[in-house]
């Protein structure tokens, strides 16, 4: 009788990378739904464009490199990257912008390093930043959420046309549809010398943060908590990031409440929640030790605040994540756990 020679352990848990990635996709659904509700079809169209381009780019790279296609396409990591990037793009971003971002993410940031598991930088955020610095105008034309002074929704076809041929429906002017995002508004108006209270009286602000935005954040929070619950994402990273952001925001807020927005505003604004649960938690590019993950998260939180408050960009999640990606290997090196039986201290 011939037996198969395989090394131990001979049994294993029934999880796979594909499953983990799919969980991330499921977890994004509530947030995406909220975003679509407030910003219209553009979000979904972007999502589709991004997914198609990502799968295409992944296929090409895998083929060029002679890797098994089916195996790696079914790990869904490219789709996760695509969705994460698409969600962060303005709803009516021209199609080429999305495509270029995905290309940078999948080809440059991921496959030049060997594909899944080897990339030191978060592909989605690398793609995002490439776009942000190359096309700042396109990247900062966000739509005004529904339910404000804009009862009219762009129809699906309008959105398609806007995305693919950059033609806006004649009914609206560009200026009527777009406007500064809450963080941008806060940033520029503080620069003009207004106080936080004055600024937040503007209709674009809602209960805690931006009108509309805050519901999207809630959706992402729900999905994110589920990710943490299923252990798909390590709780330490979101905890570290939101904690770090809240603490530093509190310090400044207490020092001068008129000049600095309150911590809850910061935590709930922009991409903080989304970033904490979905982006910073990318296991490949984050720190992998337990203590390291706390530090990594806190680092992101603090950098986000610094960039938002003192830097040149309204939100800093993407930059902060990339910056901490740089530090992650060093953090890992210095935060190794005490091995069983090693002397304490």
């Amino acid at each position, binding site marked *: 009788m011939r037996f*198969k*020679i*395989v*090394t131990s352990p001979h049994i294993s848990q029934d999880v796979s990378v594909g499953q983990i990635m799919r969980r991330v996709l499921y977890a994004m659904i509530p947030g995406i739904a909220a975003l679509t509700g407030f910003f219209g079809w553009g979000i979904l169209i972007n999502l589709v464009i991004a997914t198609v381009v990502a799968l295409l780019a992944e296929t090409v790279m895998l083929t060029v490199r002679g890797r098994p296609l089916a195996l790696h396409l079914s790990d869904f990591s490219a789709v996760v990257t695509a969705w994460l990037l698409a969600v962060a793009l303005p709803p009516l971003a021209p199609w080429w912008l999305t495509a270029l971002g995905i290309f940078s993410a999948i080809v440059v940031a991921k496959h030049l390093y060997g594909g899944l598991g080897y990339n030191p930088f978060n592909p989605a955020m690398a793609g995002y930043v490439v776009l942000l610095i190359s096309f700042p105008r396109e990247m900062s034309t966000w739509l005004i959420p529904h339910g404000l002074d804009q009862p009219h929704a762009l129809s699906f076809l309008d959105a398609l046309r806007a995305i693919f041929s950059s033609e806006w429906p004649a009914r609206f002017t560009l200026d009527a549809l777009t406007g500064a995002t809450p963080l941008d508004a806060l940033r520029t108006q503080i620069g003009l010398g207004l106080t936080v209270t004055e600024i937040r009286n503007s209709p674009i602000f809602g209960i805690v943060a931006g009108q509309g935005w805050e519901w999207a954040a809630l959706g992402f929070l729900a999905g994110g908590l589920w990710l943490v619950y299923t252990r798909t994402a390590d709780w330490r990273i979101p905890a570290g990031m939101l904690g770090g952001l809240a603490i530093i925001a509190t310090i400044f807020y207490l020092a001068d409440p008129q000049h600095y927005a309150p911590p809850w505003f910061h935590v709930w604004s922009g991409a903080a929640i989304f970033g904490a649960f979905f982006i910073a938690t990318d296991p490949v590019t984050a720190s992998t030790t337990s203590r390291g993950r706390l530090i990594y998260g806190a680092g992101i939180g603090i950098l986000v605040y610094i960039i938002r408050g003192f830097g040149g960009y309204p939100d800093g999640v993407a930059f902060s994540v990339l910056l901490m990606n740089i530090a992650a290997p060093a953090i890992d090196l210095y935060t190794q756990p005490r091995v069983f039986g090693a002397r304490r201290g």
Partner: protein
Amino acid sequence: MIAAIVVLSVMAGVSGLLLGFAAVRFKVEGDPIVDKIDAILPQTQCGQCGYPGCRPYAEAIAAGEADINQCPPGGENGVTALADLLGRDPKPLNAEHGVVKPKMVAVIDEQNCIGCTLCIQACPVDAILGAAKHMHTVIASECTGCELCIAPCPVDCIDMIPVAQTITTWKWTYPAVTAKAAA
């Protein structure tokens, strides 16, 4: 113009004084790197690297005359270790100097040995026992497998045989192979 020349020559002069001082006070000492290189080499003393033994090769590397990929007995690991020590990029073994072979030991066919002692003279690690006109034997545990005894033997009675694998010398293999086989 004069000012320019004066200022710079003063500066240069002062620098020269300092450096001249330094040159004598702090002569470079011997080169400990040779020992470190030698420690990595497998000491087979086979000469495949093109140098008569491991130490000369180590000296050649330290002097920048030889590349780090000339020692087949050291194998890939040896090259990597050298690259690491010298802060260079590892490279594949230079095939000109031979290829990595499984570990071998020399065995003397005792029936044919005429006891000429030539192999004893060739063996760099004195791994062959025997007296003139008497049959010789290789001490297997001391033999480095350098093959230097083969050529001198007038009756061609020395053979290299691969070291047989036993339970105690068996090693777990690099998993990629098995992983693929399993998949």
